[in-house]
């Protein structure tokens, strides 16, 4: 985290650093789960599927730890200004990371089900979607860790590219599904995998919005809808 003027109470600085570290390591764990889920899918690796499903509990525990640390800081120190924003954004980001890890589990479960069926070439369609989603997630986490509002702000626009790719791949998989055949079930699983990756992109956008709030105290959520309300 960026350097701050030290707080008069050293314990406060320690608690705040501890909170941010928890979120950053939770983010790394969620990203790792997602990467492993993708490896499990691509390499048809049952053990890796099991690891992802088991490791999700670590992310769940991390969310609880972030909430507990945030509550503790609110209770003991009554933070304000950027300190208050750090506590609020950390707790919100932890909730988004927990959902990202849930999507990794969804992917791992779909990958496990696909093991019962023959391998499908179309798994390769998923890789670019994953790379975009993971790139967004990486930058969302960096925008929080570095308090980089510009990086956080840019995620919304980048997510449109992911949305377009998601639609394209969905269309391809839907067509294959309509054609029927013994691989239909696998195509259906892949549709859900793509859907999960698209949701990861949305959740990364949420994290970016929280990072903007943390850095600039600006609420950029639902800007389009708010603009339309203003114009109406």
């Amino acid at each position, binding site marked *: 985290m960026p350097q*701050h*003027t*030290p*707080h*008069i*109470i050293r314990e*406060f600085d320690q608690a705040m650093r501890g909170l941010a570290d928890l979120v950053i390591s939770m983010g790394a764990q969620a990203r790792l789960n997602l990467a492993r889920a993708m490896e499990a899918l691509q390499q048809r690796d049952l053990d890796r599927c099991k690891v992802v499903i088991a490791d999700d509990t670590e992310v769940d525990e991390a969310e609880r730890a972030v909430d507990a640390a945030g509550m503790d800081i609110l209770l003991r*120190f*009554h*933070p*304000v*200004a*950027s*300190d*208050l*924003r750090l506590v609020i954004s950390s707790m919100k980001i932890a909730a988004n990371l927990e959902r990202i890890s849930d999507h990794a589990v969804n992917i791992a479960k779909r990958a496990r089900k696909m093991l019962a069926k023959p391998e499908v070439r179309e798994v390769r369609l998923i890789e670019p979607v994953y790379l975009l989603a993971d790139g967004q997630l990486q930058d969302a986490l960096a925008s929080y860790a570095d308090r980089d509002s510009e990086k956080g702000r840019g995620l919304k626009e980048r997510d449109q590219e992911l949305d377009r790719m998601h639609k394209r791949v969905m269309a391809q998989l839907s067509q294959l599904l309509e054609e029927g055949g013994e691989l239909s079930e696998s195509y259906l699983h892949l549709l859900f995998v793509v859907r999960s990756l698209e949701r990861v992109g949305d959740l990364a956008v949420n994290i970016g919005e929280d990072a903007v709030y943390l850095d*600039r*105290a600006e609420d950029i959520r639902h800007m389009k809808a708010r603009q339309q309300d203003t114009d109406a």
Partner: protein
Amino acid sequence: MSDTFQQHPETAIEVADMDFHYGESKALKDIRLTVPRGRIVAFIGPSGCGKSTLLRCFNRMNDLVPGARVTRGSIHIDGVEIHSPEVDPVELRRRVGMVFQKSNPFPRSIYENVAYGPRIAGTKSKSELDGIVEEALKGAALWSEVESRLHESAFGLSGGQQQRLCIARAIAVRPEILLMDEPCSALDPVATAKVEELILDLKRNYTIVIVTHNMQQATRISDMTAFFYLGELMEYGATTKIFTRPERRETEDYVTGRFG
């Protein structure tokens, strides 16, 4: 004299380009600040920053300190410059009441403490005074606790009750503005909560300026917050803004506890 002040619809106090000296020492520099009517404004800042000095300027309490004076700029209350010759400081202090850090009831009965101001302002009728005392004690959320012992000594009240009695005494003369200088600093949390609830209730009828070292208190009760440092007004704005996204680094450092 009371006709000197006309109710300004939106602005209760307007401070413009004001400097203030204690002898040779400049205590306040170039203060510009508007207190909106019907709002609670909190003054915060480290000890010696000038916030209490400015508060005491508003009813010219500093006139009583030798060598203390406004050396530049102006303070308008209800559109009238309070240092202008037609302003009687005694009348000004009736319009701009004050509650101090430590409750300071007179060594008299509860009733007499509240009736004192209206009586010296000319109210003689017993029934009228009774009505004012009851209204003021109700306004200060104290009536139900003292109605059966109005003629007992004010010193028999608890610290929190004494402070609310002082608030009743201040509002008995029907001021428009109430100045409060750390009114809860000597009170326990329960008494503090009662006084804070009272302050919020008083907002319906009064403009309130409160000096506080308790920043949680500022966030709980004030609409606007002014941060002072070394005699300067560093930042002034909506309390939610000052405590969530202050503009200045000094404000951020102070409200977050990073002031070394």
